[in-house]
């Protein structure tokens, strides 16, 4: 949920999250966009399939990993949302970018 009273965020743009459109504002990180829309489950871990999401928020824990525009294992909290970005939550180990086999 966005705290509307904080700032005027200007015109939002669309990003795509797991095939669904989501509105984002300029300057927001992908983590913020997802959280603002109530999406907190970002991935399932490779070994024990544990559900994970944002934890430290400052880019040190590497738990908030999502795939952005085909590049996997990006920290949602350190990646700015861009218009037209395609974001996918992750399940298990990911093939590195560009290796779709």
């Amino acid at each position, binding site marked *: 949920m966005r705290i509307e009273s904080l700032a005027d965020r200007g015109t939002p743009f669309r990003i795509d999250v797991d095939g669904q459109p989501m509105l984002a504002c300029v300057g927001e990180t992908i983590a913020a966009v997802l959280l603002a829309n109530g999406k907190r489950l970002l991935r399932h871990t490779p070994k024990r399939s544990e559900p994970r999401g944002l934890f430290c928020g400052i*880019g040190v824990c590497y738990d908030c990993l999502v795939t952005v525009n085909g590049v996997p294992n990006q920290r949602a909290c350190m990646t700015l949302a861009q218009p037209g970005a395609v974001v996918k939550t992750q399940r298990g180990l990911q093939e590195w970018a560009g290796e779709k086999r």
Partner: protein
Amino acid sequence: MGWRKKIKKTELAIVGGGPAGLSAATQAARLGVSSIIIDENPYLGGQIFRRVPADFKIIDEEKLGKQYLQGKEILNEAAEFSERIQVWTGSLVWGYFNDRQLAVTHEGHLKLLKADQIILAPGAYDRPVPFPGWTLPGVFTAGGAKVMVRSQGVLPGTRFLLAGSGPLQLALANDLLKSRAKLVAVVEAASMTGLWRQVPRLLRKPDLMWDGFKYLTALKLHDVPFIQSHIIVSAMGSEEVERVVIARANNDWQRITGTERTFDVDAVCLGYGLVPSTDLTRLCGCAHRYDPKLGGWISVYDEDMQTTVPGIFVAGDGCGVGGVKVAFEQGKLAATYAARNLGLVDEVIADRLAMPIRNRLKKIWSFQSAISEVYHVRSGIYALSSEDTTICRCEEISLRAIQNAIRAGASDIDDIKRRTRARMGYCQGRMCAPVILGIAERDFGLKPEDIGYGRARSPVKPVPMSLLLETSL
């Protein structure tokens, strides 16, 4: 591009753009030193002065609190010396090679920064405290929640429970109240009786005491229970947190069975203090010592803020958690003596400039140590995990695996790493190392000095392979 072309020289490299780094840059500039200040984030300010995105049009600046305004002031001051301070934001210092050559990712490319003098001011991060369910989405660190609320204007949940210790979580509670979040409880591990004993020292900084008092009053006004001597013991939910259980704790923060209380929440914020970032100081070969009241392992430094490696200084939370004011003064001190090392200021003048800084530091430290006396983490907090609880979040290593490794004779944290894979993941041990130290001490009586802090390796944070590939030899 040939790798030699990647080498850039600078008089002073300042790693970290928080209060310590900014203060150091400004002071250095005043003394005639040119510096490059480097921060991984898109803006300077560090965590405490983490700014709202430039594209947000702030409706009411006052609402952002005095910290925001303080930050603006410090940034403006540094801006006055912009000809002497080069700013590299969005840049990561990840390696240290040869003598004082920092490997940096700057504008997406590799730069080798050969610095005459280095000030490391990397700050600290929230202390991870494991318990069953701590990895569930919706369980955040207090710092993580704060970034969302203050700097991105997003509430990461609807019903919040804050658990931890110390004034930082009160500040977060205040932010949440102002944002109209439903705050279900604020759970404080320490007992306030400890705090009263510290009043004489706390009174040395009445402004900070006043803040704490205001925050507690706000909680009361909003009918938010402030539950002392309690800790969080588990979080439950299928794919996200849905409920938490807290319990009373003794003076050692050991849970007392039979005192459990359950709350329905969808957001939990853990605020158990901060852990200094020592990856760079370890990588550079500085000596370290262990001080639980300052956050754990910290670099050894002298009265000039110089580490055991000549030419490398430290300042701020990264060398011992002391808060903003300490960071500010230490940054100034470090820069003064870096300037001395560079020959721009002689020893006598440096000492004269340093005297009032040292005096101020003394007073602030007195207040800070009173705070940490009450709020520093007690070992009971490491007895919450079950055998199955994930300790190394990155590699999904359980408590059982860690304990088995120690039982099999693992004598230090690198040994534990080789046996269990803990510390081999993306975060390179930032999350699990402080926990492993706590568990080893509590369950096995192994002193942190024995467990050690592990060998640091470049890169101190993951870097894309492409960064190395773009350079020819």
